[in-house]
Each structure stands twice: as C-alpha cells, then as structure tokens.
C-alpha cells in the first residue's frame, strides 16, 4: 500500500507567555516528536486520553494549527508531486489545489454548523469553492450528497437546530465530502451522540470510505469504537506515540502497559465477563512539564530505573507492530502475573 501522508518528527508546542515583557516562559508540549505514516485507503485510529495530543495531530495535519517543527509530506492521488504541508500557507495550498483535499469532521455537530445558515447553503459552500455551478446543478448536487448520507431533499431548507444530533453529524459529513477530499480527520465524531445513533454514523462512515476511496484519521478516546471502524490503531500518551499496530493485533497482543490500562479500563457491556482491572495511580501529568525518561513512568505499574531516565524508542516488533517501552518483551507476562490476565476476550 502506498502512503498518503508521512509525519516526520512533528512537534506542536503552544507557548505560554509570562512576565512583564510577555516573553515565552514555558510551553504546552501537545505534540512532541511524532513519526507516523498513513496509508491510502485505511482508517487509522488514534486513541489516548485528554492531553495526549491526538486532536492536535489531526489539526496539525490540516494546518488548522501550524506545527512548531517537523514535516508533513502529502502525496495526492493523481499527480506524482508531493507537498510538504508544514511549509505551505493556506493560499499556497489553495493555489496548488490541495486545500480542499484534506477535510475534517468535528466532534460537536451543534457548534460545527453555522446555526444561521440553511442546510442547503452549508453543503453548497464547499461546492462553490471548487468551480462555478448553475443554480439547478448546485441544488442537484446538494440533494445527491444528502442522499449519500441518508437524508432527503426535505431537509434542504431547514436550519441546523431543527435536526437531531445524529442528523446534524450527517450534515457535517456531507459538507466534508462536498469538498471532494481524499483524507478526512474525524475528531471524536460520535462522542456527542447517542449510542444507537453512533452505530448509524459509524456504519455510514465505513460505507463512504469504501465507496469513495477515502482515507480516515479517526481520533477518539473510546477503544471499542475505534476497534469497530479502524484498520490500524495508534496509541498516544502526552504527545508521543507509544504503540502502533493493526487493530486485531492490538487487542490480542498489546505490549505497552498503558495500552493494557486502557483496554482493561473500558467498561464492557457484558456483566458475565469479569475482567482484571488495572487501575492507574494518580493523574495524567501536565503537558507543561512532562516527566523525564519515559513519560508514562510516573503511573506505570512496571516501572524500573531505566524508565525514569531514558526515553524508550519506538521499535518495530514485526508485522507493523511498533512499541515504545523498555520492557516490551516481558510486559505481557508481567501484567498477567500482577493482574490475573493479559487477555481481554
């Protein structure tokens, strides 16, 4: 499979000003050196808790927040040309015709749609940016997009607040697709929705990816959702990538202790399975001052001396499974010993 995006040493630090002269005193290290390849046509899930940098990754790729350093290499489908997005401005991207190819679906459909615009205009907006349409053609295309996401032409002349959350999210998806993208960042698209509606949206997204040949970056904190929809999963903690693997493999062969903590922490809707639960001590450290060495060592049940001083490298364990942990060889065994089992099925 070829790569559509390559992230090299991507960093995003938000500066904190202080003092009388408003100099930079510190920075929130939201993303601190990310190396990730995204393959065309896949759905890469990015999981982690608040402060891990998953949302920042998505926004940095789309240039909503300019990265502090690092490269984002984009390989669009048709041409052989590649672009380094980190150096390009919005207008440069527009001129190159690639601005519209990278889109986003936001978490909260209430705030991501302009409540003063009719649905028709919301969806027509990206269409109008691409070329000139006649009024009739435009309306036809808008209706086509509505049908694609499961809505009808009745819904054209209405305001967003007249719809339910699930329908609004469909409209947001239609808007994203209207821009003819190749790559879509989905930032917790189902977190604000009801459980049954979540299933509808996930099925819709899956169908669209297959039908239109899209590539997704699916950001969420909900591991079961990401398991359902993603082909590969990346686990992040405090701005760093700590584990990357194909979905099935992650759930059956997780190596990083944090991944185990996440997996065991998910409340499973099945009272018959009594899982061992790894309860981590303490809170997530502040990204202002991440711990020395391995960032997870302050809460890690398997922490040893080397973890406190030396930061682990992201090592390829074969089959595309990468882990950043000093104790990766023995972690599964140790966790099974301490908590009863390292399997979650």
């Amino acid at each position: 499979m070829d790569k559509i995006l390559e992230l090299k040493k991507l960093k995003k630090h938000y500066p904190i000003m202080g003092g009388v002269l408003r100099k930079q005193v510190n920075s929130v290290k939201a993303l601190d050196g990310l190396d990730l390849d995204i393959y065309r046509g896949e759905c890469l899930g990015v999981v982690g808790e608040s402060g891990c940098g998953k949302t920042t990754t998505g926004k940095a790729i789309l240039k909503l927040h300019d990265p502090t350093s690092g490269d984002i290499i984009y390989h669009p489908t048709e041409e052989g040309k590649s672009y380094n997005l980190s150096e390009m401005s919005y207008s440069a991207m527009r001129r190159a015709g690639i601005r519209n190819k990278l889109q986003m679906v936001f978490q909260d459909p209430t705030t991501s749609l302009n409540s003063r615009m009719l649905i028709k205009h919301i969806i027509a907006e990206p269409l109008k940016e691409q070329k000139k349409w006649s009024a009739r053609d435009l309306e036809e295309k808008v209706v086509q997009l509505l049908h694609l996401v499961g809505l009808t032409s009745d819904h054209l002349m209405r305001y967003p607040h007249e719809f339910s959350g699930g329908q609004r999210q469909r409209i947001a998806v239609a808007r994203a697709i209207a821009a003819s993208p190749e790559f879509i960042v989905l930032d917790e698209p189902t977190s604000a929705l009801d459980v049954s509606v979540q299933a509808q949206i996930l099925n819709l997204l899956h169908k669209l990816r297959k039908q239109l040949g899209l590539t997704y970056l699916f950001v969420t904190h909900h591991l079961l959702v990401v398991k359902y929809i993603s082909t590969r999963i990346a686990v992040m903690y405090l701005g760093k990538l700590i584990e990357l693997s194909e979905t099935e493999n992650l759930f059956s062969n997780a190596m990083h202790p944090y991944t185990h903590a996440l997996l065991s922490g998910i409340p499973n809707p099945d009272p018959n399975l009594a899982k061992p639960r790894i309860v981590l001590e303490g809170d997530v450290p502040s990204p202002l001052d991440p711990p020395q060495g391995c960032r997870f060592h302050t809460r890690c049940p398997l922490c040893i001396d080397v973890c406190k001083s030396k930061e682990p490298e992201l090592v390829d364990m074969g089959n595309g499974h990468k882990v950043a942990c000093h104790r990766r060889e023995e972690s599964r065994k140790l966790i099974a010993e301490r908590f009863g089992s390292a399997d979650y099925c």
Partner: protein
Amino acid sequence: MKNLLETKDLVTNFYTYEGVVKALDKVSIEIKHGQTFGLVGESGCGKSVTVRSIMRIIQQPGKIESGEVLYCDDAESDECDELLSKSEAWMRELRGDRISMIFQEPNAALNPVLTIGEQVAESYMFHRKRSISKQVLKDVAEGKSSFGLFHPFLKWVYSTAAANPNARLLKVLDRIPLLKLWRRPLHREAIRRSVKIIGKLGISNPEEIVTRYPHNLSGGMKQRIVIAIALACNPTLLIADEATSNLDVTIQAQILDLLGELKRKKAISSVLLITHDLGVVAETCDRVGVMYAGTLCEVADVKDLFNSPQHPYTKALLNSVPRFCVEGELATIEGSVPNLVTPPSGCRFHPRCKSATEICKTQKPELVDLGNGHMAACHNIQVKAED
C-alpha cells in the same frame, strides 16, 4: 424488604414554545436499600428528568403534573415520606443530607472562587449545625480549644445552636457584621470534618487540598471532591447523573473503583446511577431500568437484562453497542427518537419496532412481571413459564 425509593406513575411536562413536551409518561421505579440501580437510556428518554423530578429540582417551564414519590429512609420502620407533597423547606433539608446528587460536569459543580474546603464544609454547615455545635462545646469543655475572650457569649450561642439550629437568635446574629464571627469555630470544625471525608476518598494530603481552589485540581480530582461533598452527610441514597461520562477512561476506572470500594465499606448505601454507557451499568449496577422516550421499557437484574433482554428496544440497544469480543456489523435502530410534543400513540417505540403489531399503536403497554423480578412493558412478550 421495603423499598428505599419508589415512584408511582410520575408525569412531568415542559411547556415550551413548540408545545407541551410530555417528558415523563407514568414512570414507576423501585429502588431497594443497599442496591445500585442503573437507569439507562439515550438522550431525550427522560432519565435526567425522572431524577430531577424525584429531587424536585425541575425548573420552569417544567412541571411535575402527577404521581407519587415515596421515600423510606429507615429500613426498619414503616414510615415513608411522599416527596411531591412536601414543602420546599423540607426538601432542602433532604437534599444533600439524605439524598445527594452528583452531576456530569465537575467544573460546573464547583464554585471557582471558593476553596475546596469551604465548598465541602458548606454541606456540613447547612445540615449538621447541631452536631458540630455539640462537638465544639465538647471540645471547649475538654480544653482542646477555647472560646477566648467571648467565652460566656459564645457558650450561650452554641448551646442554642446545639438545641435548635434554626433558632431566630442565630439568624439575627448572622446579619450583624462583627457578631457574624461566631461562626468561626463552627467553620473550623466543619473544615476538619471535610478533611476527614476527603481523605476517605483516597486523596492524598487532604489538609493541603482543602486550601486549594478548583482550578488547581485535575478533572478526576474534581469529581472526587464533588463526590466528597455529596457524601459528607452520609446520605442514604446517592444519585449520580452521568457522573463519569466526561472523564478519561483511566480516570473513569478510578472513580468507578472508588465507588465500588465505598459500597464495600458501607460508606454509601444505595446508588441511583444514570448513564447512557451500558458498559458502566454492566460493571457497577445490581439492577437496571431501561427508558425510552419518557417511558420505562424494562427493569431487571443486571445479568438478566444483558443475557435475556425482553423488550425490543433493549434488544436493539444491546445490539448496537460495540462489545469487546463480539465481531460483526453493529445493528442500528431505524428512525430516530420521537418528538415528545407529539409522541407516538400507544407504545412510544412502535414506529421503530420490528415486531410492532396493531395493539401497539393504540394501547400503551404496562410493566408486566415476567418472573424473577424481570419486568418489561411490551404487548408481544411471552410470560416466562418457569422461575
């Protein structure tokens, strides 16, 4: 055994511009002493409205139209109180003392300009004046602390407070600027108790925490403080309205673990847990009620509900939730939640139900006992032949 809390045919309406929203349609729930009851449903199903109706904190334009809420605090005695007919003053005494509630957003529950200690102490100051006054008098008598210069005056005030916390004298004193300071020893004792309860919740350095402000704490800590405020006066029933929905997975695990531990240590007796997360319900609750569009569809013990759901909505809901070891496409439920201004006639789920029949459109199904405490409101279920 008697029920701790029982609602009978609760009806609540909201009078809005678009019409009358019939939020609750004869909801009847029973919670026993020492039980963790989970109320599950999607948005708009009325679970939050039910709980707010029980606590009588429904605001305009909402109105509790009819129904009964029976609350029997003491498992031994036969006395029960009907909450909907009590005065607001009586309810104020009840809230925070016998029934406590915690909400979803810890940031909104904590006042950013008061220290943690002050906020936890508020609970004690309101509900436990008598007990704290007695404690203060005892401490002074034993010499552990002293009233200083104003000994006779303060002794008299505290004796009054110990006898009658609502005495007019205290209210008058509270309004006079300098004399207001009589509360200082009271406040100190309340802070001391706050430190104790915060410590019980597994927070290290409680003496230091009480001097901090909410913005110095992380989300998980804030939610623990909110729980501390709720548990301060040892309530019989704790109501948690989506208390862990906003938290990270590992922090949620900590909080659920904490709640489990408190239950084991008997620090809390009964819990009414409201959530949309079926996983949380499966792991923490003893009994579950499923609500849809303002009606209660099914109530059962947790294992019964997950292993053999009877109501079509419950079945559909369980099939649409991603599970750990289950593969395959998630089932979806056709249609969307109805508009409660014009709810469907008869059974409110019938437009989306695969097994709907003629009677479902006209007659609302009642909750029927299917055996083993498993109840469902559906016309099309065979009553279980055995147990």
